[in-house]
Each structure stands twice: as C-alpha cells, then as structure tokens.
C-alpha cells in the first residue's frame, strides 16, 4: 500500500491535567517535501512532535506512516521506523570524535567479540559522509567543531540510521547567515534525495526559502495548512498571531538625537576584535550586525570589561574610562542585556523579585542588610513598566515564557539608577513574533525617553525595525556604518557583512 504522504497525523488530541495541549490537530507531510511547522511558543508544536516521535502518547486521533497506522512506544521505536529528530539542543558527546558520535551505541565490533573495530568505524564514517555530501573529518572531536558543523554531524547521525522522516527543531537558532544558507541548501539536497522533512522555525525568511507546505498551529489547534507558494510573510504572521505585526518605522519615530554619549576608538581584543571604532549618540539606537563570528558580542564584552581588551580607548560622556571588570562598567552606567537570557540573564530558580534586584542590591540594603519592602516596591514598579504578566513577583523566573523572561531582564535593568547606555544582545532570540514587537516597543520607549542604546542582532528585520544607524562587522572589523536610509536595504547590510 503506497501513499502520497510520508506522515499523516489526523485529529490528534492530547490533554495534560485536564487541559487540552492539542485539540483536533492534523498534519500531513507529503513524501519528498519540506513541511514548515509554525506557531508561537506554546502553540503545541513540540507536543505534536513528541507524539510523532513516541516520547508521549496521544489521547485521540491517528498517526499513519506511508499509509499504515503507527504508534511508536518510545523514541527508539520511532527511530527504527525511520522517524528521527534533530533537537534544538544537540545531543552530541563533546569529547568524542565525529565517527564515535555517529556510531554511538552501535559501534562496529570485531567478529564474536565486544571490542570496537575503530578502523571500520572510521572507514564507514568516511564513506557515509562522502555519500551524504557532508564535509567533516571523521576524527575531529565535537568540541573542536563549529556550531554549524555540529549541526551537520547531528544530521549525519540520523541519516546514517536511514531516517526517511526528519524533524528539525529550530536548526538555525544558533547559526549565522552564511551557515544558515548552507544548511538550507543541504535540506534542499535531502529533499531531492527523497527525504521528507518537518521544519520548525521562527524565522519566516527561511521558511519561504525551503518549505513546500506550511502548517500553522495556534493555542493547540490547527489554524491551517497551505502551500508555501500561496503565502506571504504578512499573511503568515497573521495566521500565527492573528494580529498584524508590522515591521515599519513605527518603532523609530519620535527620537531626539543629540550629542555623543559613548565613543570607542581602535578597540582590539586578542581574537575577533580588530581596531573597532564607533560613536553612540543620545537618543539613538545603534545596531551591530554581522554573521556569527563577526565579533559583535566580543566587541561589546571587551568594551565592558567582561573580556580583556589589548588596546583601545573608551570615552563616556567625554571622559576617558577603562573598565577592568563588568562591575566597573555597570557602576559607570552601561548595562548589558545578554544574549543567552537563560544562561546569562536570569537565575531561573529564584523569584522575579530576586532576579530584578540581582547585582543591584546596594540600592536595597544598608550595611549589607536587605530592605525587602523597598525592594518589593521598586521591582513591582519596574515589572509593571514592562507589563510583565505574572501570578506574583515571588514566582520563580523559570516558570515564565521566553518573552516574559526577557521582560524580567529588562525590568532588572530599569531598576538600576543613573544609567547612561543600554545594550541589548539579540533581544528577541527564541521569542515568538507577538512578544517580539512588544520587546521592540519597550526598547523604543526607553530610547524615546532619551536612553541611548546598542542593539546587537543577527536578524536584519530586527535591525531595520529598531536602529537609526548600524555598524556592520565582518571578521572582527567594522566594514560599514549605515544610516537609517541605507539600512532599509537588506542587501546593502548583508553585502558588508559578507564581503
């Protein structure tokens, strides 16, 4: 019995504790195509995929593979059927080689023994990688690989197990522009080879580049499935959030740009930052754009004293400053909202209140003793300002959604006194489209109030939505500083980032 579809999930229901996580959701993956699965955080994408891969069981509905009904009990069984997942957080063993990772748990052995035949393992890996057209050294250790090579390794591993249905969960979240292109090319190659792919991503540009069909979920229900050719960005965003999110001049209006607040001259760091100079004016947003490895975050980190700089002068409000440690730059009034909010921005196990005042406790204490009343009042006011939805400020930060966690980090910044510059590193990474524009609105409200800001971003639409000027970097050097008119042209920005 053959079928047009590799996977048909029909009328899937799933409840958690009496609440529907999925209700009457259907998904059809045509053979040899790429299906993009979209939806805001909490829309039910991962629940649906966990059912498909056997991690959890469905309450109702049917799942068919090649026209035959299946019900994998666990992921191993799903994998045996040819369904495999490349998770967002790659599950590779850092100290093992490429080959050891591919054959992990099923290493080739000498006949009749339990001794690993390494020669065969490396030979097989070389052949496999050649066949798959993946350029990796079988003997390279995972920790020596770039993020994108690790991604390719994870893909090679599941392909080596003859996966016909491949699910990719946000595979480009950590990749730079160039690497994304390579990955998308490879996905297209896989499609040509007859693989069927479910592609989960927040990045709409990618989806239009590779998807054949698009399935959108919202609040655990199916919104619809359409051929990608019939869609455009506006329609798609509308389907996802059911409210229009426009990337226009809306966020940059009403700014009063004034004198130079921060000037950096010839900043260099041991690696990745070479001779970087820029100026930041009062009331403006200065963007930093570049591919991964361009040195944007590193520039900011060495400026703030997180990483050591070799040379360079920094002037804050005309006075020369030298930050030896991040506490120095914070004391001087420059605050960074870091890239990885779960790793660097928040203590997930502690409350919103404690996170809000972290690093700022001098304000809420006398002689080392905390004044919790004052703390509570100030932090409450700050989380109100960013319109944080919460049960209570005593709630653990880890319970919040990505967008709300970012708001806690913003509130923490607002709680500080005498700030002069805000820096946002990838402020909306991993945040769904609806919450994104809310974060933009907040940032632009801070700027309108006069606070000069730097936004580091890998997303051109984000730069275009927020920035008055953008510093484009490539391999540690500044290749261009574009003004508002120039940065409206995406090709222009990208040109300087690649050249």
């Amino acid at each position, binding site marked *: 019995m053959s079928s047009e579809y590799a996977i048909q999930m029909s009328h899937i229901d799933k409840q958690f504790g009496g609440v529907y996580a999925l209700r009457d959701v259907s998904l059809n993956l045509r053979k040899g195509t790429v299906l993009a699965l979209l939806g805001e955080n909490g829309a039910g994408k991962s629940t649906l995929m966990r059912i498909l891969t056997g991690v959890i069981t469905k309450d109702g509905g049917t799942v068919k593979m090649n026209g035959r009904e299946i019900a994998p009990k666990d992921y191993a069984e799903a994998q045996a059927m040819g369904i495999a997942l490349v998770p967002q957080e790659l599950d590779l063993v850092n100290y093992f080689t490429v080959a050891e990772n591919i054959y992990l748990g099923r290493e080739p052995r000498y006949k009749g023994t339990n001794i690993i035949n390494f020669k065969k393992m490396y030979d097989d890996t070389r052949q496999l990688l050649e066949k798959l057209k993946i350029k990796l050294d079988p003997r390279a250790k995972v920790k020596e690989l770039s993020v994108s090579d690790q991604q390719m390794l994870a893909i090679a591993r599941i392909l080596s197990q003859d996966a016909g249905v491949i699910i990719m969960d946000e595979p480009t979240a950590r990749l730079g522009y160039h690497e994304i292109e390579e990955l998308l090319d490879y996905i297209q190659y896989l499609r040509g080879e007859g693989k069927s792919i479910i592609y989960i991503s927040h990045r709409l540009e990618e989806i239009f580049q590779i998807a054949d069909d698009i399935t959108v979920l919202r609040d655990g229900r199916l919104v619809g499935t359409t051929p990608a050719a019939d869609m455009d960005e506006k329609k798609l965003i509308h389907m996802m959030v059911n409210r229009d999110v426009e990337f226009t001049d809306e966020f940059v209006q009403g700014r009063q740009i004034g004198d130079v607040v921060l000037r950096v001259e010839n900043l260099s760091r041991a690696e990745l930052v070479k001779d970087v100079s820029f100026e930041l004016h009062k009331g403006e947003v200065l963007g930093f754009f570049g591919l991964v490895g361009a040195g944007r975050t590193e520039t900011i980190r060495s400026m703030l004293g997180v990483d050591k700089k070799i040379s360079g002068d920094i002037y804050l409000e005309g006075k020369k400053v030298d930050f030896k440690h991040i506490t120095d730059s914070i004391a001087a009034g420059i605050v960074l909202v870091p890239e990885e909010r779960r790793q660097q921005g928040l203590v997930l*196990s502690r409350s919103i209140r404690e996170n809000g005042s972290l690093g700022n406790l001098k304000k809420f204490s006398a002689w080392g003793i905390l004044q919790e009343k004052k703390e509570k009042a100030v932090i409450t006011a700050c989380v109100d300002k960013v319109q944080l939805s919460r049960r209570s400020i005593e709630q653990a930060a880890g319970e919040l959604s990505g967008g709300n966690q970012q708001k806690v980090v913003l509130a923490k910044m607002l709680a500080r006194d005498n700030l002069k510059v805000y820096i946002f590193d990838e402020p909306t990474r991993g945040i769904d489209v609806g919450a994104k524009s809310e974060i933009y609105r907040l940032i632009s409200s801070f700027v309108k109030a006069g606070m000069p800001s730097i936004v580091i971003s890998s997303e051109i639409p984000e730069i275009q939505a927020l920035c008055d000027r953008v510093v484009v970097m490539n391999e540690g050097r500044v290749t261009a500083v574009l003004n508002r008119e120039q940065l409206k042209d995406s090709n222009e920005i990208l040109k300087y980032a690649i050249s």
Partner: protein
Amino acid sequence: MEKTMKNLNLATFAKKYGTVVAFVIICIFFSSQTEVFLTHSNILTVLRQISMLAILGAGLTVVMITGRIDLSTGYGTSLLGIFCAALMVDFGLPMPMAVLLTLLGGALIGLFNGYCISYLGIPDFIGTLASGFLLSGINQAYTKGHPISGLPSEFNIFGNTNFLGIPTMIYIMVFWLIIIAVVLSKTRFGRHTYAIGGNKEAAVMSGVNVKFNSMLGYVFCGVGMGITALVLTSRMGSAHVTAGDTYLMQAIATVYLGGTAFKEGEPNLAGTILGALILGVLKNGMTLMNVEYFYQDIAQGIVILLAVIITSLQRNRKK
C-alpha cells in the same frame, strides 16, 4: 480534574515535606519502642549530640548552596581544637584570647580555601582535599599524635556546663544557626550566595562579585569549624589529634539529607538542621534500643543513600 489537582498538591507536598514526614515517622517509631525516647532529658541528649554536626553543617551549607564543597572541614576542626588547646596549655594564653584566635584561625582556613578556589581557580574538590591534608599534616607535626590535656576549667563552658538546665552547647548551636539564617536570608551576601548557586554566569553578568562572595562562603564555613572545634574539645576535656576528622562525611551527609527537604534537592539551612536531627535521632534511638554500633552505621548509610536517590529522582523529574 479536581482529583488531579489534589494529586498534584500531594506530590508537591511530598517533595517539600517528605523528609519531615520521614523524620516524624522515625520519632514515632522510636517512642513506641523505647520509653525514654520522648523524655525531656533524652531530647536534650539528642540536641547536645547533634549540636556539633549542626554547627559544622550550617557553615558548610553556605558553601554548598553556591554549588561547591569543602572537604577540609574534618581535618580543619581537628587542627583548630589542637590549636586552641595549645594556645591555652602550651602558650599559656587566657581562654577568651585563645577562643578568639581559634575562631580567627577558622576564618583564615576558610579564607585560604576560598582564595585558592575563587581567585586561583583551583577546583573545589581537589583544592579543599589538598588543604585538608595540609591541615592534618600540620596537626600531626605539632602534636606528634599526642592529645593535649590539662585545659583550664573555665573552658568547660563550651561543652560541659548547663545554663537554666540546658547544656550550653545547645545555646551555641542555636546562636550560630540564627546567625547563618539571618546571613542567608537577610543580607546582600546571602542573596548573592543563592544567585551564584542558581546561575553563576548570570550573577557575573549582573555585576555580582562572584569571586569575593564565593570566598566569603568559605570563611563562614571556616568559622563554623572553629566553633565546632571549641565545643568538641571542651566536651572531650582534651584536644585529640583526629577528634574532628569523622565530622567531615557526616556534615556533608547532613547537608545532602537536608537538600531533600523544603527546596527539592537544593541545600538549605532548615534542611541541614533537619538532616542533623535525623542522623542524631537515628543514632540515639538505636542506642536506646541497644542496636550494635555497626548496625547503626548501616542504618545511617541507608538513610543517606535514600536521601541521595530521592534528590536525584527529583532533579530528573524537574528536567
């Protein structure tokens, strides 16, 4: 739906207070088996027996909240006991002076540990293991293995006298526990300690001086060693070379055991007190029932193992 909510609450309750329930059950068991268990004097005996463990464990809790460990506490306690006795007996210092210097000595040991780990970047496990050997070596070199006796009679105040019918060492324990409780919950340092334990990198990026605060944690642990040494030496009437050594493993076990209560696998002071109580009551109850000492060790081992299993199960489920 209502039923699932109820189950959920029961599960959270079990997670947070399961260890408390276990403690109550142990107490009920021993009071049903022996007549003296719940008497006034036996309760005081238990409290007296656990006081040194609780004092040492409380200091260690501060270090363990930050996700680090101190393996020098046993040898440190032994050395500080010898140090105090030597100051009084060999050097003829007045008792208050010797006591003060002992506490200071404890703080210095902590400072040394903390400096090596925070500022020199030595891994905590190997760093404090090494400093433990160092302390033990100094101890052996000075004493040649001989105990120091002939302590002044006023030194009895730390471990051998009563005040209002209650042993003074219980007051000392309560005093130290209150200090640690206030430090952890009401001070900037305490808040930083929890933040470092929860997410060190976020603490750094928020501008918390992680190195200094981590080092200060070891100082509290060191002062705890000093107090334990005073009580222990006074209690025994003389300073023995290895008197404190066995407290290391017990103190770590106490903090681990305490981590199973109230906070789902994270060290916390209330838990540490409960942990010390459980170990103390087990020992006391079994002694009252005339259980031989090696069976007592087996029972203690099982309880600690159970606690560690429960903690890892909780952590796995959290993921």
